[in-house]
């Protein structure tokens, strides 16, 4: 067989081989796609459909009306709820980014020895694998009127009266969010930073760049994938939360989703569905905005 014939026979054989590979991949990915289609894709479509339904005190009535959306957009409270949710999201995003970036930086560039690095990384990860509610209520003995902070402040003579704003306030909500979600910032940024070639930093230093300039002009840009992923996690988690805001504000603050949960409790499914649809659109726009700034998929594929 001449080499040309050999090449031609390879070309003829190539497509079937590729097809079996593709078929194998389809079979392997099929269970996941099936479960997600059934318990995520279909339910989300149902939410969209039900958002156009009518409802009575006890039932949902198939219809195609826009009343739920009209109500949502004409109620004054909607804007306040969104303002509250977005305010929490931005504050928590800024704090977790600052914390997450510095913690990841410490773990990647300052800790020597792989074993020690893994150990400290696990130390940050373990609380994530324990109950969120328990971690949330563990702030109660700290922040309460007679809690540890107030006892300490009064004991030190800083204040004579207990500070009232600590527990059941926006402050408590932010503390709990930061406690629960900082890890979602640390892990992706850690992953990005761990891939940075250390010799780049040496080169920058040899070229006379100071510590801060190196961080801002080399580490920060090269960690942008991690920062983007962490930001997506934190923003969607805060925007989608209702449990933390309810418990830690003592019912004084609300979020879009906690208001939605009230509607569900009152069996008002169609207005809740409409509220969910609008929220998903807004969160999607926020995520799309982040993804426009950073091409996460291209960098993940590296």
């Amino acid at each position, binding site marked *: 067989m001449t080499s040309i014939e050999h090449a031609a026979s390879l070309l003829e054989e190539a497509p079937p081989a590729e097809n079996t590979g593709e078929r*194998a*991949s389809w079979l392997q990915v099929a*269970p996941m796609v099936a479960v997600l289609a059934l318990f995520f894709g279909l339910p989300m479509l149902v*939410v969209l459909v039900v958002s156009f339904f009518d409802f009575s005190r006890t039932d949902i009535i198939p219809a195609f009306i826009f009343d739920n959306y009209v109500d949502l957009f004409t109620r004054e409270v909607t804007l306040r709820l969104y303002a509250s949710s977005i305010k929490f999201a931005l504050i928590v995003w800024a704090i977790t980014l600052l914390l997450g970036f510095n*913690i990841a930086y410490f773990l990647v560039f300052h800790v020597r020895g792989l074993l020690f690095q893994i150990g400290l990384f696990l130390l*940050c990860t373990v609380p994530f694998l324990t109950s969120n509610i328990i971690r949330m209520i563990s702030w109660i003995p700290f922040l309460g009127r007679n809690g540890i902070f107030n006892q300490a402040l009064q004991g030190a003579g800083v204040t004579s009266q207990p500070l009232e704003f600590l527990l059941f306030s926006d402050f408590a909500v932010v503390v709990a969010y930061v406690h629960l979600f900082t890890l979602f910032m640390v892990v992706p940024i850690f992953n990005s930073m761990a891939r940075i070639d250390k010799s780049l930093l040496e080169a920058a230093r040899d070229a006379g760049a100071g510590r801060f300039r190196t961080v801002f002009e080399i580490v920060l840009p090269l960690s942008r994938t991690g920062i983007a992923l962490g930001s997506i996690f934190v923003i*969607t988690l805060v925007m*989608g939360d209702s*449990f933390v805001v309810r418990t830690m504000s003592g019912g004084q603050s609300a979020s879009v989703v906690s208001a939605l949960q009230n509607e569900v409790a009152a069996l008002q499914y169609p207005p809740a569905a409409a509220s969910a649809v609008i929220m998903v659109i807004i969160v999607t726009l926020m995520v799309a905005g982040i993804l426009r700034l950073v091409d996460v998929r291209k960098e993940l594929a590296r």
Partner: protein
Amino acid sequence: MHSADGSRPWTFYFFAAFFGLFVAFLYGPMVVIYVLSFQGPTGGMTFPLNGVSLHWFDALISQSRVGDIAGSFQRSIVLAAVVAVVTVLVSVLAGLAFRRPFRGSAFAFYLAIASLIMPGLFVGLGIALTFRLLGLPTGWYSSGLGAQLTWTLPFGLLIMFAVLGRFNRSYEEAATDLGATNWQKLKEVTIPMLLPGIIGVALFGFTLSYDEIARTALAAGAKNTLPLEIWAMTTNVTSPTLYAVGAVTTIVSFFVIVVALTSIGAIQRRRSRSNT
């Protein structure tokens, strides 16, 4: 970054202190509630400790007004075990699929990511509505299980991406060259090499399910899982019982984490021994 002579720059100490504070911030409050769960019978929700007792742990079992802690605990353990097994099977397979390019891979990837970042309560709402429209009853073992999988499967997939990204394919190629069938290759080479990662996926599947609340809240049906039971407690129980249940559930989490990490550690040690 450190200088050539190996001495630490001042920033190291700054960052080390910062990191120490962060760890204290993470663990401090949790440690405090474990201490307070041993509060004496007349003690309250905060310091001082009025004696030391197991009163509040006892109240957990004996007081019916606390709720169905024992029953919900059993349900949560069973559910978490099932979720862990399904997550390992399904997301490890899916992870292997993404090692070759295939049509629809972008769709599958984005479906998983969308499922991961969708606010959990919306997923639960959708599942509850779907079951309602289909005339099916919701239950923790059916709709609740499905709701939790929409959270654990994408997580498992992302862990598989991280594990497979560091996977050296030349071992598999060597197996093929030595005449192994695809099945032999998977059983004898791929799975054993991926085992630490697979244990990691199981650990996440179990603990994420065991602690899940947002997706399960509307989809669990009549019988609560443990986090839902605790959530109900936070609104009507104002005694250290709340801390006692926190201590118990965290012990379970820690037990699972330690078992998973020691088995991963044992595998790695055996490997490094056989390599030398």
